[in-house]
């Protein structure tokens, strides 16, 4: 029905995440900006809930998300909206309470109509190239691309270092 999520590196500091949805942009946009709707799907791995979702949807407005695990663990992040252009574009900063992204990111979400569907393109701009690479480990692929065939054998558990 809908395509799978695609995650690719772009430039030195960006990740581009793309996915199609079987709904028009205004609904996808709404699902990304209304707390009660966010809580329905933005929950993450099993066992977690999006316990707090506060959104002040205007340029300069802030947002705050807090997740809770059934075992008591919590996790939070938030940021500031830089641009709010309903229902086609959202730009916001993002920083986790424990900074896993090496200085936070600036995320741009484009909600693009494709027939009756929506293509959601999220561009994540990291603070540095290193932060980006650490997040996606994208260069693991790029760096070893030259010997991919050999690497496939490695991943499959074939003996390494022997004459082929």
């Amino acid at each position, binding site marked *: 029905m809908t395509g799978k999520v695609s995650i690719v590196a772009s430039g030195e500091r960006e990740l581009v*995440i793309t996915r199609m949805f*079987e*709904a028009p942009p205004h609904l996808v946009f709404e699902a990304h900006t209304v707390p009660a709707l966010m809580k329905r799907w933005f929950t993450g791995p099993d066992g977690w809930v999006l316990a707090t979702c506060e959104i002040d949807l205007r340029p300069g407005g802030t947002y705050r998300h807090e997740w809770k695990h059934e075992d008591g663990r919590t*996790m939070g992040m938030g940021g500031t909206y830089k641009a709010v252009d309903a229902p086609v574009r959202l730009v916001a900063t993002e920083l986790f309470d424990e900074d*896993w992204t090496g200085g936070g990111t600036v995320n741009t979400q484009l909600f693009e109509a494709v027939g009756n569907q929506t293509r959601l393109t999220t561009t994540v701009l990291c603070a540095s190239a*290193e932060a980006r690479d650490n997040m996606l480990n994208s260069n693991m692929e790029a760096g070893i691309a030259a010997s991919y065939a050999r690497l496939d054998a490695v991943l499959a558990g074939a003996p390494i*270092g022997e004459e082929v």
Partner: protein
Amino acid sequence: MSIYITDWLLKGMVMESNQLDAVFTALADPTRRAILARLAEGEASVAELAAPFAMSQPAVSKHLKMLERAGLVSTAVDAQRRPRRIEGTPLAEAAGWLERYREIWERNYQRLDALLEEMKGLEHQARKGRKQ
């Protein structure tokens, strides 16, 4: 916003496995990736690994230590050359990690798919209601 899954998994998985952390740190450097690519072709001594780089052997040894700590490279038992070889398992774990976070992301979006179906239904009903 959506990138939180990446962070989340980095956090969860790294706490779960210090070695995975070491793997990603080791892979974050272009020289170390090049060394790994070279070793993927077959085992090589430190001198052989240093040759293509404008680097001293001690500098290459330092990179090799990081790769060894991550479990990506091991030293073969050969007293003379002490050739290094690539180890497959940590890379397979790293690849598995990447796939796992893609899956969790996809699951989030599948929940969103279901919600959007519901929203479309409600919108359709509202439109019908207005017409009547």
